[in-house]
C-alpha cells in the first residue's frame, strides 16, 4: 500500500492543475525568481515540459517497479548459478527481461503523453490544440477543425503504438517460432 503512495497522489491531481502550479506558482518564490533557472521557468514551454515530465515519471516509476518485480526468480537464480552477480546480472538478465515485460505498458503511457501535451495550449503554447482553438474561435468552423486535428492526433498515436509494437516484436524475436 505504501509503495503505491507516490503514484496515487500524483495521478489524482489534474495535470492542468500541476501545470498552473508550476507556471503561476513558482514565480511567487522570490529566491527562484533571482536564480539562474528563472529564464527557463518563465517560459511556458519549459513549464509544460517540467509538468509533463513530473506527471509521467510517477507512472513510469510504477511501470519499472512492476516490470523488475515480474522478472521470474528462476531466471535470476540461473544467472547466479552461472556466476553472475551485481551489474553483470542486471545487464544480462534482469534489465532485458524487465524491458520486455514493461514495454507494452510503457507504450500506452507514451500515448497518454501525446494526448497530455494538448494542455500546454492553456498556458499560451501554440501547439496543435492551441492552433485548433485559435482557428475555432476566429472561424467557428468547429467540426472541420475538430476532424482534422483529431485525425492528426490519431495518426500520431497510431504511429507511436506501431513503433512500440515493432520494438516489442524485435525484443521477442527469440519467441518468433511460437507465434506461427
Amino acid at each position, binding site marked *: 500500500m505504501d509503495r503505491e503512495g507516490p503514484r496515487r497522489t500524483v495521478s489524482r491531481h489534474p*495535470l492542468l492543475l500541476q501545470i*498552473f502550479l508550476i507556471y503561476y506558482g513558482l514565480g511567487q518564490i522570490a529566491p527562484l525568481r533571482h536564480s539562474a533557472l528563472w529564464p527557463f521557468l518563465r517560459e511556458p514551454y519549459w513549464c509544460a515540459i517540467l509538468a509533463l515530465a513530473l506527471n509521467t515519471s510517477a507512472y513510469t516509476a510504477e511501470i519499472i517497479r512492476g516490470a523488475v518485480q515480474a522478472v521470474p526468480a528462476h531466471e535470476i537464480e540461473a544467472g547466479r548459478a552461472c556466476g553472475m552477480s551485481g551489474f553483470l546480472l542486471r545487464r544480462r538478465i534482469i534489465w532485458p527481461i524487465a524491458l520486455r515485460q514493461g514495454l507494452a505498458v510503457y507504450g500506452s503511457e507514451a500515448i497518454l503523453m501525446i494526448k*497530455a501535451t*494538448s494542455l500546454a495550449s492553456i498556458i499560451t503554447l501554440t501547439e496543435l*490544440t492551441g492552433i*485548433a482553438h485559435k482557428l*475555432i474561435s476566429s472561424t467557428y468552423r468547429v467540426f472541420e477543425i475538430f476532424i482534422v486535428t483529431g485525425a492528426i*492526433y*490519431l495518426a500520431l498515436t497510431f504511429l507511436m503504438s506501431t513503433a512500440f509494437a515493432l520494438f516489442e516484436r524485435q525484443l521477442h524475436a527469440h519467441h518468433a517460432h511460437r507465434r506461427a
Partner: protein
Amino acid sequence: MTPGMFDLLGFGPQGWGLPLLQAAGITISAALCGFLLGSVFGIGGATLKLARSPVLRLIGQAYTTIFRGVPEILVVYLFYFGGSVVLTTLLNTGGFPGFYSLPSFVMGVFAVGIVSGAYQAEVYRSAYLRLDRGQIEAGASCGMSKFLLLRRIIGPQTLRFALPALGNIWQSALKETSLLSVIGLTELLRQAGTAAGSTRQPLLFYAVAAAMFLVIGRMTGAVLGRMENHLAKPWRR
C-alpha cells in the same frame, strides 16, 4: 495590513473558503453528471461493439477509438463551440435570429460524459465477455424473458466485474472536470485561479485546490471500494 494565510482561506470578508467549497461542489456535480451520462454512452457503446451486425460493430469501434485517442480538451472545445454553432443554426433557420449558446455546465458535462463513455464501453464489453454463458442459458431455460435475464443475471454480474475498472474511470472523470475551467465553468481550478489572481498567491491557492482534489478523490474512492466489497459478497467463500 496584508491578510494571513488563514484569513485568505477562511470564511471571513477576505476569505476564499466559501467560494472554494462551492466550486468544489460544482466539480463534484459535473464529474457525477458526466460519469452517469458516460455510463449511458458506455452501455450503448458496449452494446454496439457486441452487436452481430458488422456495421454496428464498426460504429462502436469508431466511437471508442476516436474519443479515447483525441485529447479531452479538444472534445471540450468541440462540444462547447460546436453546441452553440448547431443551436444557432437551428434557431436561425427556425426564424429566431441572433447568437445562442448553451451553459458551459451542460456542454462540459456532455464532453466529460462522451469521453468517459468511450472508456466505460470497453470496460462493460470486457465485463460482459467474462460472464458465464451457462448462467445465461440456465436463466433462459427457466423461462426468463430477455429483460428479466438482463436484470437478474447479466446486469448484476457485469457490474461486479466492471466496478474496479469503473473506479479508475471515475477518478479520471473527476480530473477531466478541471478542463471545464477553459470554457468558463467556475469549478475548483477556475475558482482557485480567480483567487490566485486577486490575492497574488497562486502557490497557496493552487496547492489548496490540489489538496481538495486529492480529498475528493480519496473519499469517493473509499465509497467505491465499499460498493465493490458489497457486490462481491455473494461470491466470497
